[in-house]
């Protein structure tokens, strides 16, 4: 099945695109420019997206690697009604954003972590965002934000029970 799902939308993938870089496809063909290119060799993390809820570097992948998978980019983080995801809200509220170029990748790495573990330690958060470089913040307020988001998400989970 030659399909890739991006932010809940299914895309049919023609044969000739299989070797195309995933990040370039997202940015150029789908205009999802929230996914950034900082190094293009998979070490800076600004191109981080979720593939079946795993944080991956989209610059290291080709379309053929994503066939049949569900991708989430930063544009897919908000709910249908436009409400921010608690991680996004926490990034704003904690001052975790400066230049913003690492932010989409950071948010997605944080989401991959909180999907598995809603009560991470600060050390676990550090490890989860270790593939994402940030030159502005020293990571301090980003870690604060992920902690705060985890607490909000835990509370939401309680309510939904």
């Amino acid at each position, binding site marked *: 099945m030659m399909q890739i799902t991006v932010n809940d939308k299914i895309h049919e993938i023609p044969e000739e695109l299989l070797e195309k870089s995933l990040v370039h496809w997202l*940015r150029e063909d789908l205009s*999802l*420019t*929230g*996914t*950034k*290119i*900082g*190094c*293009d*060799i998979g*070490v*800076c993390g*600004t191109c981080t997206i979720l593939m079946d809820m795993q944080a991956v570097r989209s610059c290291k992948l080709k379309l053929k690697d994503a066939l049949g998978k569900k991708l989430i*980019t*930063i*544009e897919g*983080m*908000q709910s249908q009604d436009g409400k*921010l995801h608690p991680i*996004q809200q926490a*990034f*704003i*509220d*904690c*001052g975790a*954003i*400066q*230049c*913003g*170029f*690492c*932010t*989409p990748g950071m*948010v997605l790495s944080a989401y991959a972590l909180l999907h598995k573990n809603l009560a991470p330690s*600060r050390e676990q*958060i*550090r*490890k989860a*965002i*270790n593939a*994402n*470089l*940030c*030159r*502005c*913040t*020293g*990571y*301090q*307020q*980003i*870690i*604060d934000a992920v902690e*705060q988001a985890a607490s909000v998400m835990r509370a939401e989970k309680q309510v939904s029970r």
Partner: protein
Amino acid sequence: MNKVFRNDALAKVTGIAKYTDDYTMPGMLHAAPVYPNCASARILKIDAADALALPGVVAVFTAGDIPGTIKLGQIIKDYPTLAHKTVRSTGDVLALVVAESRELALKAASLVRVELEMRPALLDPEEALQENAPLINPEHGSNICNIHHVRTGDIQKGEEHSDLILEETFTTGRIEHAYMEPEAALCHLRPDGVMEVIGSMQHPFSTRRFVASTLGVKLCEVEVKTVPMGGGFGGKDDTAALVCARAALCAWLLKRPVKLTYSREMSMRESYKRHPYKMQYRMGLKNSGKIEFVKVRMVADGGAYCSVTPWVTWRSTVQCCGSYRVPNVHCDVFGVYTNNPFSGAMRGFGSPQVNFAIEQLIEMAGEKLGIDEVAMRRINMLKQDDTTITGQKLDTHVVSLSQAMDTVLKEINYEKKRKLCSFGNPIAEEWYGIGFAISYRGMSLGAEGVDFNSAIINVQPDGSVLIETGVHENGQGSETAMILIASEHLGIPKELIRYRLPSTSNIPDGGTTVASRGTLLGGGAVVKAAELLRKIIAEALEVPEIKLENSQVLDASGKLLMSWEEAIRLCFSKQIYPYAFGVFQAPRVSWDEETGQGNAYFTWVYACQAVELKMNPKTKKVTLLNMVAAHDVGKAINPELVKGQFYGGMAMGAGYALFEDLPVENGLVRPTNLHTYKLARAVDLPEMTAILIEHPDKQTPSGAKGVGEPTNEIMAPAIANAIYHATGIRYKDQPLRIK
């Protein structure tokens, strides 16, 4: 729960924020640069036939195609936008290939054949200083780009009066800014004949100058607009303006939109770096610990082009003795041309190097004299009303250096923890060290240049407000700071205020957003504009004076006159427009280049940072445990964002000490991307504490001073001191190569 305000946070956290490379235009072409394979050569021939033969390749341009001026620069115009006849560094751009796609442009760039007559490259600044050295920029007449001096007191007397004399040499390396977004520019010729530029750059006005000069057009024929920028740290001043000038050149010649997006490899090869320094200190002291004299010679490797080397080295000159009282000073600082990648502005701007040396030297001296490092600083540090080494009396603001030091030492419990340090204890399984450093820093440009900024407050008929300043949003949150200052001084909620999309066609050039001057200068201009606006409203209300508070207009005695909205409606009905243009001119400074004396900066900030670390005695792996900083910021406009500057500055300083190095081989930077240039990652850094010290400065209208750079100038020596306390070994070369 925290709630931090930033006007661009929502856009940045949702991916809506569009950075330069995210934009595209109909008919847009892509450009790619061609680099030489050596650092010094004569250009014999550039043959583009093979590149042009590729279908989809539109043009290949060289220096001969530039209609205006080939060489650009902020101080000395020595940088060729496209190399002309001569190659001076491996980052020179020989040609630009323009094609229908970026992929094609990159492929074609590799097909451009360049014939060079290679020459020996001058890569060591000391060799470049030799009398018979070949000249890198013959027009300049010397490989010495600039020299600065300080001559204070009598160095001979200082020598005679000293009980202890130390001689030490410190070196620091070349540092990459490593902003997460590499340079990019998108230019198009508008129907009105204006070249419109968006780009990842931190000085739209120098970009406009560079573009206009390259195209040979007037300034009004170029408009540079601001879009979100993925970090600058000083590194997107002239080097990024050049990228914009190249894209504009292609767009001008082809009459089609052209985008030039740099790969990380291009960015690291070509962009300017932090200056590598060699600093030879000779310091004399009394047995009491009092510094008698400092004699210092510094050589900064400026690389192939001037950029802002004379300004960077000037700050090193003024601050060559750190934050200490020294009666006798003899300082010579050389900025030197070599065939290395050029050096320019980077967060700290000539102070991280000097502090790396002096903040270790003071402790080394103390140890020889049997005086502890805290006492050594107390004996020598600048206090209220003291005079700096350049003869400036510090009596216009609160000198909070001892307050900053005491605050940090208390917070980190220095006195107690200092006793736990290992000093290379051979039987310990783990070594522990704690260290700190202090600094003072002259604010803004000082005697580097004209220092002013302007702001427009344009009130709309419904009472909402558009503001704009000559300050650029580099990611630090400057637009937000301006909104908050306007909100305070207009007495209206911040939600009523929007920051207008900045453009070089809207407002005068307020200088570059560097030197930690954004909030200081731009904020000052907003306050001035708000003062003028109050006069305009008072005129409409026919009262001598008004106050603005809680969305109300009050008279001088505090009596309610009418609401903000009513007052604005009244202004419009009387055709007295609530539009104010405010200018803040920094107070006068002075400098004598011969003697190195003068009131170098109109105000100063003070700081202390400390660090705890542990080391594995076998592997020598350093683990940072804790970092604490206290900085006097004057007044914190947006405290959480100010703290963000602290954290980011400490992190960058830690990287400076431990990780970052950009060695050059045959003039080519060896690391090519972020896998071989190590930046601090989340697990490399400890928890950090940021302590704001606020003494609003009477000389600045908003009370705020600066914070961006001070936070990045002392963590490296603090770490070097901590490592000494852990190992018993002094590392005097940055990065610390711990053996």
